[in-house]
Each structure stands twice: as C-alpha cells, then as structure tokens.
C-alpha cells in the first residue's frame, strides 16, 4: 500500500481549467491555485473552454464563470457530464448571482460547488480546497 502512494499521486493531474471572461477574476483564481501548486489552463470565454475540453481531459478540476460569451458555465457542466472522459472532473461555478434557483440548476447540471461574487480571499481559498478535495470522491464514484 505504501508503495502505491507515490504512483497514485503522480497519476492525479495537478492542472485546473479556469474559464472566465473577466481578467480580474481569472487572475485572482489563478493566483490562489498557483499558491496551492496547481498548474492553470486558462480560457477567456465558454467557447474556448469547450474547445480545450474537446481535446484535453487531464484536469484535476474546473472553475467556470456562469455568465460567459458563447457558452455559459452551466452549459459546459452539462457537456462535461455527458462525456465519459470528463465526468470525473469536479466543477465549481462562480457567479455574481446569488439566486437559489440558479444555484440549484448548476448543482442539478452536475457542478459540485458554487461560489458567489463578491467573495473574500478566504472564501475563494476554502472553495478551491473543497473543490480539489471533492475530486477523489467523484473519481471513486465514476
């Protein structure tokens, strides 16, 4: 068992997809992820994120803005849940809306976390830790 641990650690990608059309939000999320030693793959709108996901599934998690040009975050979640190779990736949605119906729709689409703007650095870091921690349970369930 002890011998397996380093191997399992290597197999878990330390890459996170971040899609947001707001450069301030992208920078904030990227900074927080880099502090936790994650590599960040950036997309500046929903279509760019979709194109990345079509060819790349090696992500530990995805952090998606709800409202983006071309494709919304929730549409990307639905796409990810419909593709076997992307199903295991936990997704967090960030939104400036605090509407309960919107939150419910993101969870029913398959997101595992929801972060409402404005958020504090503590809230951002906690949400990211929770998201990255949830990956293992999703992988086990998949």
């Amino acid at each position, binding site marked *: 068992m002890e011998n397996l641990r380093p191997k399992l650690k290597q197999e878990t990608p330390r890459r996170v997809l971040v899609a947001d059309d707001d450069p301030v*939000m992208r920078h904030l999320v990227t900074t927080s992820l880099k502090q936790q030693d994650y590599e960040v793959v950036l997309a500046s709108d929903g279509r760019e994120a979709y194109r990345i996901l079509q060819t790349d599934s090696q992500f530990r998690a995805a952090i998606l803005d709800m409202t983006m040009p071309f494709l919304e975050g929730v549409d990307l979640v639905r796409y990810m849940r419909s593709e076997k190779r992307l199903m295991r990736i936990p997704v967090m949605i960030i939104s400036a809306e605090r509407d309960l119906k919107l939150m419910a729709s993101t969870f029913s689409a398959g997101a595992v976390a929801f972060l409402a703007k404005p*958020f504090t650095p503590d809230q951002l870091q906690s949400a990211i830790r929770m998201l990255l921690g949830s990956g293992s349970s999703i992988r086990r369930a998949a």
Partner: protein
Amino acid sequence: MKKTMISFSANNDLEHGRQVFRPAQAAAIDNDAVDMKVLNAFEELQPDDGSDLIVELIDLYLLAAAQRVTQIREASIATEWVLLTRVAHNLRGSSANLGVRKVAEICQKLEWMDRHDSPQTVAVQVGLLEYESARAGAALAAVRQGRLV
C-alpha cells in the same frame, strides 16, 4: 474611512445621447469610491515572487473597466439591451470583488433595466456609471502609485 462629500451637477447637455455629469470639485477625490478594506484583504493572497497582486488586480481592473464602460455607453446608444446587461453584469462582478461598490451598484441597476425603461433613464445611469468609474479609477490609481513608492 474618511468620506469627503463631492457634489456634482448634471448639466443639461446630452453628449452622444447621454447625460453628462461634471464634478463640482474636480480636485477632491473622495475616499468612498473604493472600499480599501475589501481591496486590502487580497494581501493574504500575495505571491512570494516579489510581485504585487493588488497592483496587478488594479491594472487589470482599470483596463477592463474602461473598455466595459465604453461598451455600456455604446450599447445604451444603440439600445442593445442584451449586450448592455451582459457587460454590466460582468463589470458588477469584478467591481464588487475589489470593493468598487458604487460602480457595482450602478451596474446592478443597469442589469435590471430593459426596453421598457426610457432612453433618458438609461442615459442618466450610464452617466452616473461614467462618473463613478472615473472616481474609482482615480482612487485606484492613487492606491497603485502609493504601493509602488
């Protein structure tokens, strides 16, 4: 936080279809344009590489906000409500997160507006947005300058 009252008068000019507001005391920059407590909270995310996250956030915000305010003005003139509300929503998110509250509040009002609102009502809010955005820009530029010294 010290608050300095700025009175401003709306003149009756319409510049490209929008109400123009001119600060009565242009020299005075009031400190309530940016909630420094919110902005300074990001100190805890400062990287160890010597860069200044807050300066970087200010730079990104100033560039993006200027573009978005222009987009909002153009969308209001063209009565493109879908575009206007989308851009206002986007600007609200980053403004609220960095403590630029007045801009965030006006963006929220703009998001609620639709084709039923008169062009004059929208123009007033767009004018206020430009005014508050300029105030916030000046305040953030001062913060940025202070951090670089």
